[in-house]
């Protein structure tokens, strides 16, 4: 197991490097730059600015400078917000995004797993129908629409929760954003869990367990859950990607101070440094979670551990 974990960690490093490289070059090769504003800047100013941000150096040299600084935790300067470095801005937004994203991720995963398992055990009975319907809603109502509906219904009409904004430590402010993020994630997880649980409940080894007289509770807890989790766990990596993508919208709609908000505005302003920094940060988070998911997978499936 230890060897497996080490191998996975080591293999994540080149992936991270490839990802950084890809982002860097895609951004730099695209036409348009941060200084192509409405008003043309005088050539000398422009040259100074470009020199200041190393944009006058050959691309490959810029790349190495960037990677070198990145290794030291320096994401470089923001090209639009002059008073901040990218790292500073990310440090302000990151804790919030992580808190929002992971709360939703954990709640959504748990809710999804439980709902899916319940649905499977009660297949084609009313709890199953109700859950399948709820899952469908979570799946087909896009998060931006769900956000608008939640805001309107619970924020404005019923006035149960604040419709937006953020005060440090205020849980009511988080209820609606987290709900919006949880619904689709829980829906997808529940759908997968339902399918895989139904499949597992029909396997020969569950039949064997029944023939041993173990009783439903023990069969579910010991024999069915672990193998049923396998396909669900391998979805969690991409699932987190979806969820963080959703948090871009949610942070925007509910006016929350995460890095998602920076990302959109930075992309619109062509702020290379900030876009690159945000993308890389998102990527690192996702890679880290994928690593964790791989390890959980190996724990669940003994065959993976030894291969």
């Amino acid at each position, binding site marked *: 197991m230890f060897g497996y974990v080490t191998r996975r960690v080591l293999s994540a490093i080149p992936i991270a490097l490839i990802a950084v490289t890809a982002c860097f070059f895609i951004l730099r090769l695209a036409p348009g730059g941060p200084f192509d504003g409405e008003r043309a800047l005088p050539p000398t100013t422009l040259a100074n600015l470009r020199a200041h941000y190393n944009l006058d150096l050959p691309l490959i040299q810029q790349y190495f400078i960037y990677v070198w600084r990145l290794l030291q935790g320096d994401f470089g300067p923001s090209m639009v917000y002059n008073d901040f470095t990218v790292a500073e801005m990310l440090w302000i937004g990151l804790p919030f995004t992580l808190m929002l994203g992971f709360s939703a991720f954990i709640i959504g995963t748990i809710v999804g797993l439980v709902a899916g398992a319940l649905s499977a055990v009660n297949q084609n009975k009313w709890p199953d129908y109700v859950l399948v319907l709820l899952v469908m809603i979570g799946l087909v109502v896009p998060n931006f629409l769900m956000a608008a509906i939640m805001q309107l219904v619970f924020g404005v009409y019923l006035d149960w929760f604040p419709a937006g904004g953020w005060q440090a430590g205020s849980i009511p402010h988080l209820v609606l954003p987290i709900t919006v993020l949880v619904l689709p994630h829980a829906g997808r997880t529940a759908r997968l869990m339902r399918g895989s649980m139904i499949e597992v409940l029909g*396997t*020969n*080894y569950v*039949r*064997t*367990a*029944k*023939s*041993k*007289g*173990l*009783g*439903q509770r*023990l069969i579910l807890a*010991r*024999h069915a859950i*672990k*193998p049923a989790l396998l396909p669900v766990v391998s979805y969690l990596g991409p699932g987190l990607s979806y969820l963080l993508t959703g948090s871009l919208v949610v942070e925007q709609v509910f006016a929350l101070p995460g890095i998602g908000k920076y990302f959109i505005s930075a992309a619109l302003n062509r702020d290379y440094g900030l876009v690159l920094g945000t993308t890389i940060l998102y990527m690192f988070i996702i890679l880290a979670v994928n690593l964790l998911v791989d390890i959980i997978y190996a724990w*669940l*499936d*003994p*065959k993976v551990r030894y291969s």
Partner: protein
Amino acid sequence: MKTVLSVEDMSVTFALHQSEVHAVREMNFSLSEGETLAVVGESGSGKSQAFLAIMGLLAKNGQAGGRAMMGDINLIGMAPRQLDTHRGKDIAMIFQDPMTSLNPTLKVKTQLSEVLVKHRGFDQRKATMAAVEMLERVGIPEPVKRANAYPHELSGGMRQRVMIAMALLCQPKILIADEPTTALDVTVQAQMLDLFKTLTDDFGTSLVLITHDLGVVAGVADRMMVMYGGRAVEKGTVDDLFYDPRHPYTLGLLHSTPHIAHRTARLDPIQGLPPSLEHLPKGCSFNPRCAFAFDRCLAERPPLADTGNGREKACFYEGPMAYGKVA
């Protein structure tokens, strides 16, 4: 001898979209203590479903009727919770495919010891020790090492031995083995049958051996029951049925089995296909494939009737039978 299981008028039906399929009808038999009963038939003859029904393991759309009395309790229609106090303890089952019948995510010892924890109230340590002991008993070398292995680390034969060990842990009164050797290599098959014989003798367990392979029957069973189209068509001791089959289907089965000692003998397979349970022929189910069928067989279904000497058959034909040589 004491009867451990007595099945009376049992039936199994499956509800399909619009129709119903009767997989087993009017099944009657009894199993004595320590005896080995072979249940023989082609696939689709209802032999497996009958015993899955007794174990309460039918698919969701399946419904069992009649009675299966183990002592004075009826296993058919029993609530699952109550059934669980007997399954694995008094009556155990081994399945055809050892590759998929063990849980791939649990260690062998966990899958074994849980039976003892559940039914005998052993603590985990004691249960594990008993499990290892049982593994040794079923002929698994290095039982401690195997107990700590996952199923995918064991060979097919080894896994089937684990299944046997698991079924025998609580020394059940009845062991049902559903095609236990079909998925195994021939050499392993023989070892496995030997093991069955030794173990059931040692524990005094009654064995039901479900198989389509008469070679398997010959070596182990005391009595046999031949099934066709969801019904028993002939019953008797193995010797009687092998040397003096009275039902044309039994005869056909015997002639379909290659025999290594008589290599020159021509095989006479039964013509045609097993019937679809949804559309059984009128009269005797076997009539379309029967060389001896006459008018009555097409109109009327022969009941399973006692023919003396503890034998029963369901056939109207009373004349001599020489398969393949009937004019």
